[in-house]
Each structure stands twice: as structure tokens, then as C-alpha cells.
């Protein structure tokens, strides 16, 4: 950014990043250093100063500025000597250099407070980084059995299973995510795509449609955007597959749709996608546009 940052704008951006959980570590470190350099920067933060230091420490670790992270953690440690949150930061500092040591550190810390969510999650994440998938899944299972409502945890489990090509298991984990956040179209889309990968096309089609239902994509909008457009691609893939193989198997015993509905959906999806790729802007700038249109008219 060319424009100069002011103290108030920096503080404002940092606090937004804190509440929304952005991971824009370069920016956070740049603005955080700016705040630290100001004479009254830390005083302006008031009680938020500790949250700010935690944020800065994590961002600094993220981009490898270990000195800065050390400084932040040291300050926090002086203020909160017994805090488990600082303990976690210290663990992350070790993680930045030695995963094996970090694993030991987390294991010891969990012995003191065995139901600590943050430390437990870090432990699981270290296991995954070390590629100890089996133990990682075991820990994550027992974590989710205790803290069922942790959506991040379920998504991680689904991701791990998907990375091992265990799509049915991944779907199972995602079904918990759907229960916990039924309103989120991204989760529905992910479930649909996982079902498609697991070759359960009838189920995938229903969840692609569900994704569209959850978005604000409707007739009045000229073309579908974002998650809805991706879901329309999925719908089209599924309808084509189902129309050519009427007896497609469904592991989840999902009932097949009526043939005329499938045909209408096929046409509808093609319409929506063609509209999306026919705007004047798309005509000039979208790579692969002709291929998409060819596929749509097939």
C-alpha cells in the first residue's frame, strides 16, 4: 500500500482482523510494528493491548519473524504468568523451529489441564504436520467426542479423510458440520463435492441443489456468482451423469429423481452457466470460455 498508515487506521484494521479472524499476517505485522513504534501506540489500545500482542505474536510466527514473536510472548508472559493462552503461544514458538519438541511440550501442558481446547487442537495440528495421520485421527476423534460443537475440528477431520481418499468417512465428518451449521452454503457444497468424489451422484446432486437454495442466487440476478455458480457446475455434472446412467448406485440409498425433473435441471443449469459466461466482460477476459460453452451445449 502506497498510502501512509495512521495510528487510528492501523488500530482499527487490527481490531477488525482480530474479531473476524483474518490471516493477513504480513499486513498485521506491518501495522503492528507501526503501532509499537508510536510513542503512545500501546496506551491507545487500553485493555486490548494483550489481545493485540497475542495477534501480533501469531502473525509474526506465521511469517517467520521469530524475534518479534519472542518479544510479544515475553511481554504477555510477564503479565499473565499462569495463562494457558500464553502457554499455547509458547508452544507455537517451539513449533516454528522443532515439531518434535513442540509435540512433547503440548503433551506435558495437556497433562496439567487435559481439557484445554486450544492446546489440544495445537497438538492435533502438530501431529498432522508431522504426517502421523493415524494418531492424529485418533486424537481428533477423541477431541470431537468431547467437544462436539467444534466445527473447525470436524472440517479438519473431513479434510484429513479426504486427503487419504476416504471419501465416505469424510462425508460422515461433514454430516456433523451440516448439523452444526445447517445455514452455511459452503459446507453444503463441500458435502456435495465429497459425495460426488465418493461416486454417490444422486446424493451429490441433491446437495448441489441445496447449496443453491441456501444462496441468494435467484432469477432476478442476471447470472450466478460465487458458491452458486460452482454448485451449478456440479448440478450439470450430476444431471449429465444421471441421464446417461439412469441406474447409478447410491451408497446412501438416495432415491432417484424423476426423469423429467432431471432433464429440466439439466437445461436450467446449462442456462444459468451460459448466462454467466455470456456477459460482455466474460467474453473478453475469461480464459477457457469457449471450452466451457462447448461443454454446456453438449
Amino acid at each position, binding site marked *: 500500500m502506497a498510502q501512509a498508515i495512521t495510528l487510528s487506521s492501523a488500530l482499527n484494521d487490527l481490531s477488525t482482523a482480530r474479531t473476524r479472524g483474518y490471516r493477513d499476517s504480513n499486513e498485521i505485522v506491518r501495522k503492528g510494528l507501526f503501532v509499537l513504534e508510536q510513542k503512545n501506540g500501546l496506551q491507545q489500545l487500553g485493555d486490548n493491548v494483550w489481545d493485540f500482542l497475542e495477534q501480533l505474536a501469531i502473525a509474526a510466527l506465521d511469517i517467520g519473524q521469530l524475534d518479534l514473536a519472542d518479544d510479544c510472548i515475553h511481554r504477555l508472559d510477564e503479565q499473565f504468568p499462569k495463562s494457558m493462552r500464553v502457554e499455547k503461544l509458547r508452544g507455537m514458538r517451539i513449533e516454528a523451529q522443532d515439531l518434535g519438541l513442540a509435540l512433547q511440550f503440548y503433551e506435558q501442558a495437556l497433562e496439567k489441564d487435559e481439557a484445554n481446547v486450544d492446546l489440544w487442537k495445537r497438538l492435533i495440528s502438530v501431529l498432522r504436520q508431522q504426517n502421523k495421520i493415524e494418531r492424529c485421527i485418533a486424537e481428533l476423534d477423541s477431541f470431537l467426542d*468431547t467437544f*462436539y460443537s467444534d466445527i473447525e475440528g470436524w472440517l479438519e477431520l473431513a479434510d484429513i479423510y479426504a486427503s487419504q481418499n476416504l471419501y465416505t468417512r469424510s462425508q460422515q465428518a461433514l454430516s456433523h458440520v451440516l448439523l452444526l451449521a445447517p445455514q452455511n452454503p459452503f459446507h453444503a457444497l463441500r458435502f456435495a463435492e465429497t459425495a460426488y468424489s465418493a461416486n454417490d451422484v444422486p446424493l451429490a446432486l441433491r446437495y448441489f441443489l441445496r447449496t443453491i437454495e441456501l444462496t441468494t442466487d435467484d432469477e432476478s440476478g442476471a447470472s450466478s456468482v460465487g458458491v452458486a455458480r460452482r454448485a451449478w457446475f456440479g448440478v450439470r455434472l450430476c444431471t449429465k451423469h444421471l441421464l446417461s446412467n439412469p441406474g447409478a448406485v447410491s451408497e446412501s440409498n438416495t432415491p432417484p429423481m424423476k426423469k423429467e425433473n432431471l432433464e429440466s435441471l439439466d437445461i436450467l443449469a446449462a442456462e444459468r452457466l451460459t448466462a454467466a459466461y455470456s456477459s460482455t466482460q466474460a467474453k473478453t477476459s475469461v480464459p477457457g470460455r469457449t471450452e466451457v460453452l462447448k461443454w454446456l451445449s453438449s
Partner: protein
Amino acid sequence: MAGDSLYLDPQIRDWVLFPITLVMILVGVLRHNIVQLIASSPKKLSRAATREQRALLRAQILRSTAKSSPIPPSYYDSHTDELTAAFKAGNYLSKPVELDQDGKPIAPNPTSMLTDPAAMEGMMGGMKNQAVMMIPQMIIMGWINFFFQGFVLIKLPFPLTLGFKSMMQRGIETPDMDVRWVSSLSWFFLNWFGLNGLYRVLLGNDNSAVNQQDLASSPFAGAAAPAMGQPQDYNKLFTAESENLQLAQGVYHWVGEDIDTRILRRYGKLAA
């Protein structure tokens, strides 16, 4: 009116009305700080205990979404079966159920909480808070009663009916004084109940100077509420929940059931 002829010495305002108010505010702030000092840090739960506490939530989430469930039938049924079996087998209990000679589970003894040190600690915490709440109020009340008994402190700017006489003129036994005059002891009570808003501004929303707590709860009333850490019979709760789950299975309806017609209608491809 007789009341209008009453003339209050401005010294009463300066040396009685303001001091009482100020002292009550300061005591509230002090109390907030003392409660924070003596508050014991929340006890760390073991994994098993946390798991036990949160298992019900799991069933409730599944159950409450049943009417338009986001997950397909095969998944719903397997979740239900798994949870029901786990509840019935007591997999989520942190301590195994004790059985009596007939093989029936023994309900935990309610008086056992009086001997259980963990429960005692929770109750002591409540009593400590209680003491910090009550003692200063009693001292202030004694102070007002001793020095300012029978003082008339202030005249309300609006008229009141006679029914308010006992509230506004506590400590002054006159049958025919205007109800608008407030006695010292009544001023104390008005402050006691009325300063909550001010504390909220001064100390934030979850401050411990607000009196509601000491009105609403004796230490035992607090201990009776499940949140206060009274041992719950989770086994009973789990059995009930497994029945609820089976009931919910009856109203289950998959949201993806007729999704094709819904979408086609939304885009005008199907007559509504």
C-alpha cells in the same frame, strides 16, 4: 399544604444526603473489587467430565434439526442409533454406574454433596460472595440508623399516593406529612436498589456490585441450580435423552427430499 411549609437546612443536603449517596457508590465499587479478589478461579474439569457434560448437547442438536434435517436419512439414522446405544450403555458417563444387589443402578445420594469437597467449595464461594454483599449493607444501614434516624433528606419533584408512605418515610412515624418527603433510611433503600444502573456504567456489565444476586440467591438456592456444580444424575438424563431421540426420529424429514421441485419452482421451470 403543610408539606410546603417545611424548610430543609442546606447543611442536611451537604452533610447527610450527599455523603450517604457517595458512601454507597464507593462501597459498591469496593465490593466489586473485593469479590474479584476472593473469587476462586474456575475449576479445571477432566476430559471425562467435560465429555459427560457436553454429550447431551450433541443429542439436542441432532434432535432439534430433525423436522427439516440437513443430513440424509441413512446418516441421520446412524447418528441416532450410535448416540442411543452410547447413552444406554453409559459410554458418556465419567464414572461407571454403581449397581445395588438387584442389579439396579443406585441414584447418587443427594446429601453426598455436603461431604464432597468439590461441591462444598462451590457453596463456600457463594457464601463468601454473600458475606461481601450483605455485611457492608448492614454496616451502612446501622450507620444511618444511628446518626441520621428521623432525618428528612429530600423532596421528590412529583406527587405520590399515600401507599408510598411506608416506602418513602421509613423511620418517621408521622401520619400527615406529604409523601413526597423522603426519610434517610428510605433514601438508603432507594440507593440500594437504584444504583445498579450506575454500577453498570462504572464497572461494566458483569460487575459484582449489583445487588440482584444477594436478593435472588441464598447460598443454597444457588447450589440447587444445576449450573452451580451440583452432582447431576447423568445416567437418568441420558436415558431420557435416548427416548427423546427415538421420538425425534418419528418427525424426521430430510431437507433434500423434494429439493429438485423446490429449485425448479424457484427458477420458474415448474408450475407452482
